[in-house]
């Protein structure tokens, strides 16, 4: 019982660190994750996470981030631990977006090529998928189910949605 408690503690700590450091330690973090209990996010579900994570990742102020997460908690009835998981994903996303933001002017001025923008875009999309699955596997099952709903609703409602 006590051993189980400490295992969970360590895993939680590693998940937190991985969420923050995953751009650098993605492969290492993959081993540190507990066995996945959630099916991978579908394309439609990732579409919602793209919106969520880009919105959070582009915020720069503490107040803005706090309000964003507070309203997200109302949308999905998140508990504080789940808000922390999403906040950590936002930190990761913010770092990558900043890196891309720094690179884009050089790309647009022709100093680096289209290959670079394609690589960064691919990296961002991979990051969104990775973070989406990390979130789904780090929140309560009921919350994971709720976070999957927008993707399905929008896909059903849109003309041209995936």
């Amino acid at each position, binding site marked *: 019982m006590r051993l189980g408690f400490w295992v969970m503690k360590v895993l939680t700590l590693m998940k937190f660190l991985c969420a923050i450091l995953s751009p650098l330690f993605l492969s290492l973090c993959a081993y540190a994750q507990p066995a996945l209990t959630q099916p991978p996010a579908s394309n439609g579900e990732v579409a919602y996470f793209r919106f969520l994570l880009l919105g959070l990742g582009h915020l720069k102020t503490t107040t803005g981030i706090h309000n964003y997460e507070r309203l997200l908690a109302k949308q999905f009835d998140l508990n504080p631990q789940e808000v922390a998981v999403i906040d950590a994903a936002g930190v990761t996303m913010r770092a990558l977006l900043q890196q891309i933001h720094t690179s*884009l002017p050089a790309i647009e001025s022709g100093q680096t090529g289209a290959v670079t923008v394609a690589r960064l875009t691919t990296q961002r999309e991979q990051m969104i998928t990775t973070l989406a699955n990390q979130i789904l596997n780090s929140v309560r099952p009921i919350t994971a189910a709720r976070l999957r709903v927008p993707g399905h*609703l929008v896909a059903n409602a849109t003309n041209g949605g995936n």
Partner: protein
Amino acid sequence: MWWGVSALSALTLISSTARAQCREDSDLTSFRACLRGSASSCTLPTGTHTVCSSVGTINIVNSSLTAISGGDSDPADTVLQRGDGSLQTIMSLTSAAQGLTIEYLTLDGNRWAFGSPPSGGTQYSTAPNISCLIQSTGYYELNLASATIATVWYVNFINDPVAGLILGGSTYTTSPPAASTVDYSTFGSMDDSAQAARATAMMVEGTHSGAYYNHIYYAGTAGINLNGGNNQIAYGNTLYSNRYEMSDGGQGGDLFIAPGTYAATVAANVIDQNFWFTDSSTGTVNGCPVPADEPQLPYPMEIYGYDNYFYNNEVDAGTIGMTLGQATGDTYNIYISGANPFDGSDAPRYFNDNSWTALFFLGTSYSNGVSGVTLDQIRVCNTGYSSDPSTPYYYSAPFGIGGISFNYTSGTGFTTSVTFGSNYPGNIYSGSTYSFAGPPSSTGSCPSR
């Protein structure tokens, strides 16, 4: 002194020259040509592209287009920016496109670039100074009023001098189900109220048109306006501190359903009014004049029309959570529920922290009230209080302005039908101008947030 005058003159000259030299880049020129041509898709490369009034609004002429996209999948990376204050609309649909998707773009109205807000705080600016236009001035960022079926997703709208998006939808299909929608789009910024629209963020028109999972922050008037259509849907949107500048001159609703709108569905939205209000001490907001003569107290929802349905919305931090039939008499057959028939696992949401009352069925006279109301399992928390100094409470408790007021009461389990004639100034507990099928229950609990 000479140097000062000279420097000022030089700056003025530089500024005038900069405005006169609005130039579009070759990528935008190619993009415009694509929208006039016969391609099925047009992509604008990443970067900021200035749109000049000398060239005009970017018109979407090609009715066979299916996709208009930014250069990558982050809308922040591809920006269409207003290049001068004389340009009224950045992009507009001039054909009756069906099956068009517009995605991964930022439309930057550049509201603050062409002149400062009026220094006196009492006058609106006029173009080309577009900092504080009046609401009725016809500036949009994306005008899709003539769309038959169009999808807007992953589009950001910032710095709009009046409105962000007008979305039409003159038809819909059932197999597969499709109608005009705006999804996963952001209006304004949670970081900075000055990036919001001066007036309405989005106007949704037509039949079966929808707004799904958008974020709308600090819009000057409504965040979402379901404007006179039918069977429209607002689902899963987050609205925060809208009606911020109140550029139409008075209080109103963050989510507005216009008179004549019918069979609308409003579900699973989170609307937080952020206790925002203005009064004679406010002065200006974002440098623009606000109504100065009396307290202006916006509501999370302002509702008119008939046969409209509300499911499990979070309605927070206003004086009145939801006002119905305030100015016209066509508000009837309204269903308000805490359940969500589209998603049985949906999170429970509340009418929370509304300092006067959760629901205000107003009507315009005793003979012109709101009727045909059903309240089903709604949850009301922390409402009708008077002691919190951080909230705009101007009248002595109990205010009892009518409609329904659950003072510190959870209405969980309240399933009944209510028919109001007009209930001003009574309330559901003491008035005599209403009838309902059964008493509310006082069971249930409020979330701690």
